[in-house]
């Protein structure tokens, strides 16, 4: 049998065999069986981790603290080989419709009706080839591949991605890891709420013990903000003198960079030290009054606005930026909330928490992790949490809305009580009643390293990001749910995936039964 061959090749596998463990999974062996003489015969190299989202790709080696390179899917990167015109003097940046232009920056989008999967494949192939040839400097396909993906990837897109990797390069298997759980792992947490302020969508994922227990999404995300800021900048441009106006460039690259840089200057979201609820109520008043606490030059952000030849100093009002940010992303506490896909992020956050069971909610609230490009907008995350806090204190944890309803308890007070049905010791909450010796041991363990319980208030935890989370988890020899075997995928495609996620999950949780070989693979959340 090939097991002996395999164990001769891989010492770790041999150890496992000798341990006589009844739980030895046979998946490695089966992949050796199906592709004899593949990469297993080479000295084992560090697996490659690639994190992919609709805007870009990060690639690096497992066990390292960050990716070696990052690659954006931009029109610049979609040019012909040898076409350097964008770098030549005299190259004309065009003022194009941002909405239309933004499509050229996306690898895919949730509406697949105008996504050319062939083009997706072309772009991705070039990006991965460049990552290997210019940055990783190892032979592509020789080492294992770990793919970190958003938890929702349209099926045809996932199929195209996997097909490309398996057909173009000779990976024997590809491991899929979900970005939100990796974000949690890279924060040192096991549970929490990931607010991914992504490009097309803001996705809020409640994670409990690395499992996604709730996912909600809204289109109030960076794309909406980019379009909004684009309008705002256009309005600023229109107000300039005629001869200045026409020289000012306004394209996608500039707007996106403006958001990054203005965000870093704390200009997109104003200081968070004052009560946000009060401020949003008096925004109109502030706009009119020139005697606001902010001094004259503090009210405007002076930027170097690119022109065709150089730069020009232009002032952009901070107040307008703040309002645009609130409108595009954060929302207000009084907004009439609906369950559609355009909810503001603070409403979405409130709704997500509301839909969680009170114990999970109690675990998630002090474990908020922000991710996505918008995290670089200083103050934005705190602004979202403040607004959500205002919603909670107004409405508590009841789904019924209405001013006449008496809010007898404050939301947070109720929350604190909610933890009476707690998670477990791992979250430093009170342990449940001890009904067996396991619980007893748990309790002892807890007593051993006593920690004060974490109060159930919003608390932001920093994450090193999904790529690093995957690097961390993978270097601990953790095995994810979803390992796609080359031969099986190429012969059956995604249709061969075992869709019964829950049953598969259950069987895996208990460990595979003795002697049983796992012949199916699952797409888990991607199925």
């Amino acid at each position, binding site marked *: 049998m090939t097991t002996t061959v395999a164990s001769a090749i891989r010492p770790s596998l041999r150890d496992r065999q000798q341990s006589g463990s009844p739980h030895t999974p046979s998946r490695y062996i089966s992949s050796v069986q199906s592709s004899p003489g593949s990469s297993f015969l080479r000295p084992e190299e560090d697996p490659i981790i690639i994190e992919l989202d609709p805007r870009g790709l990060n690639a690096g080696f497992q066990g390292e603290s*960050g990716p070696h390179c990052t690659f954006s899917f931009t029109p610049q990167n*979609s040019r012909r080989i040898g076409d350097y015109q964008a770098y030549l003097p005299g190259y004309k940046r065009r003022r194009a419709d941002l909405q239309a232009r933004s499509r050229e920056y996306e690898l895919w989008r949730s509406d697949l009706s105008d996504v050319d999967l062939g083009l997706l494949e072309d772009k991705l192939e070039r990006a991965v080839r460049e990552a290997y040839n210019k940055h990783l400097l190892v032979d592509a396909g020789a080492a294992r591949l770990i793919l970190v993906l958003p938890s929702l990837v349209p099926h045809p897109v996932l199929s195209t991605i996997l097909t490309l990797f398996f057909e173009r390069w000779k990976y024997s298997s590809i491991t899929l890891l979900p970005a939100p759980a990796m974000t949690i792992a890279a924060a040192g947490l096991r549970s929490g709420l990931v607010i991914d302020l992504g490009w097309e969508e803001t996705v809020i994922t409640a994670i409990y013990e690395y*499992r996604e227990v709730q996912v909600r999404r809204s289109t109030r995300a960076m794309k909406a903000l980019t379009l909004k800021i684009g309008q705002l900048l256009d309005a600023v441009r229109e107000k300039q003198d005629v001869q200045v106006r026409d020289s000012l460039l306004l394209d996608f690259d500039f707007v996106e960079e403006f958001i990054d840089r*203005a965000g*870093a200057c704390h200009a997109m979201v104003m200081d968070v030290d004052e009560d946000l609820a009060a401020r949003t109520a008096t925004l109109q008043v502030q706009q009119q009054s020139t005697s606001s606490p902010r001094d004259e030059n503090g009210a405007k952000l002076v930027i170097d606005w690119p022109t065709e030849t150089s730069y020009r100093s232009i002032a952009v009002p901070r107040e307008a930026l703040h309002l645009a940010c609130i409108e595009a992303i954060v929302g207000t506490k009084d907004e009439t909330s609906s369950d559609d896909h355009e909810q503001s992020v603070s409403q979405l956050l409130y709704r997500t928490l509301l839909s969680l069971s009170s114990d999970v909610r109690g675990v998630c609230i002090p474990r908020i992790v922000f991710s996505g490009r918008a995290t670089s907008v200083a103050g934005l995350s705190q602004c979202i949490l403040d607004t959500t806090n205002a919603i909670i204190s107004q409405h508590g944890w009841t789904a019924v809305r209405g001013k006449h309803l008496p809010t007898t308890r404050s939301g947070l007070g109720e929350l604190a009580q909610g933890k009476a049905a707690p998670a477990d010791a791992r979250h*430093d909450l009170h342990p449940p009643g001890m009904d067996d010796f396991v619980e007893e041991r748990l309790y002892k363990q807890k007593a051993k*390293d006593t920690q004060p319980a974490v109060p159930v208030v919003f608390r932001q935890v920093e994450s090193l990001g999904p790529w690093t989370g995957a690097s961390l988890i993978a270097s601990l020899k953790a095995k994810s749910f979803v390992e796609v075997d080359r031969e099986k995928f190429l012969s059956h495609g995604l249709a061969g995936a075992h869709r019964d996620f829950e049953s598969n999950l259950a069987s895996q949780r208990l460990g595979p039964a003795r002697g049983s070989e796992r012949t199916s693979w699952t797409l888990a959340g991607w199925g």
Partner: protein
Amino acid sequence: MALPFPYIYISCPCSDASRRALTSKRSSRDVDIDRAMQDDEDTFDPRHPRSAFSLFPPEHLLYCEECHEIKCPRCVTEEINATYCPDCLFESPKVMVRGELNRCPRNCFHCPICTSQMITTSIGDPKSGPFVLNCNYCMWNTLDVGIKFDKAIGIRGQVDEMANGGKQRPATLKSPYSGQAEPARKSSLSQTPLSPGHQDEAPDAMDRSVPGAPLDATARFNALRAFYKEQITDSSATDASFPTSALDMAYSSPSSLQRIMNIYTNRDSSAKRSRQKLTIMREARTSSEGFILTTESTKVSSPSIDYDETTTASQRAFQHPSFIGNPDAVKVSELRPMPTLMRTKRSKRCATCKHILTRPDLKISSARYRIKLIALNYIPFVTIKPLPVPGGLLAPVPDGADVVLAPGKPVQFIMTLRNPLFDDASVSLGCPSVTPGRHGHRVTILCPQFRIGKNSDAWDDALNNPPDRGTLNPAAGGEQIAGKLYDQGRNWASVVLEIVPASIVRQQSAELDEDEDVIEIPIRVRLEWTVTDLDAGLERRKRDKGLDDGEDVDDGKRELSYWMVVGIGRVAC
């Protein structure tokens, strides 16, 4: 287009949607492929976004002698033969490259502002320093971030040790776990330059960190990993008291990943077993375990900064990886000079048959190849110039000025195909009468089918042909008659290409799309030839294989067809 007019691109046949439809079983994509095939049947559209990925300058293409196919960067596999610094040409042995983090281990650096190569300069005594790295392009230098060097050599090692501001870099964290921590992803150079033992970083390297300094991403990563490892070993040890689950709990056993990935337990009895062994792990709590609250991080505490102090996305992208640069840099003053990324020499093989297509000379200073099967040794080399008629276009001058054509006015070009093969080849050119896309320009090739002679050597040529052959004869050649060649020579032939540019109508305010006014003509090239003198190598290979397999006998007939795109010029508008 960046290339001066006229230019030639060739679309590698591997990208042909129809070709792929035959070889793959992608059921989910049949619909797309069908659609693509229908489009593709008629004409290759150079403006289609996908075309940018299949079009290559001809000199970028290779040719596989086994498959008789053109090969582009997408249909070859690559193997690294050597790794070297492109700035100082220093070659690093393969085993060292990862330890040096794929960067030049010596003195080569690039500017974090403009990415130009930096120069080591003395800011004191020319011999004894101190020294800085200076960018002669944008004038940034390392003093801007408070870094200067005692020695003019081993700059990489010195930079790796130094944080911006000149203090020691807190690359790792002193924590109770430091003993068992994996080696930090810190360059091996900060110990002894070029020491091979980068994996066994000395423990004292861990202890040099500044206490109380904020954790950088690498230190945090190491702290988190140490924490997770301790959790796994701890819980495994406790579990050892459970006979049923003891054996599979050893660290790195496959079930530890279940523990990490999949620990959600219900209160039902079936789940209790897993609970027994799994619930012991906890989350990180302190910064020494890698846990950091956002309020503690520097991001929030930094007061407002000016717009021109902030970094751009491309500057941050240039700072990867985080264990060398600072991809999270908010301010320009947080950027780091970046050691030069190493480059590789690679051999290429046909992805289909593994036949070797290029193998570089291993000497770093040599740009030569020991093997290089370039496509231009198999397919005709094409040149284009305007027909020399009074009042016609002038031949392009190398000043890069655009070739501009008047709309509605027919223009003739001479397209010359030169045969590199040692056999006669028959050529058939096909092109749409109207170019695809928004502005259909009318195109005619006056003589689409012809033969071009073999590339015999010049001596043969002189013997077999009268000396005036091959030069333009105004009486016989230079004709613009349909079905007749314009001119021909020993191994080349010229045909006339006539174009009637369409006029581009647009509203006053509307801006042209980029290159919307460029005239590009897709031409399908079909070549047929018979190899009369089969290459010695081929013969040998056949002998080795043994001829008994019968089916593989090479009759020498070759056929090749591909789309070529000719960029002619711009339409005046």
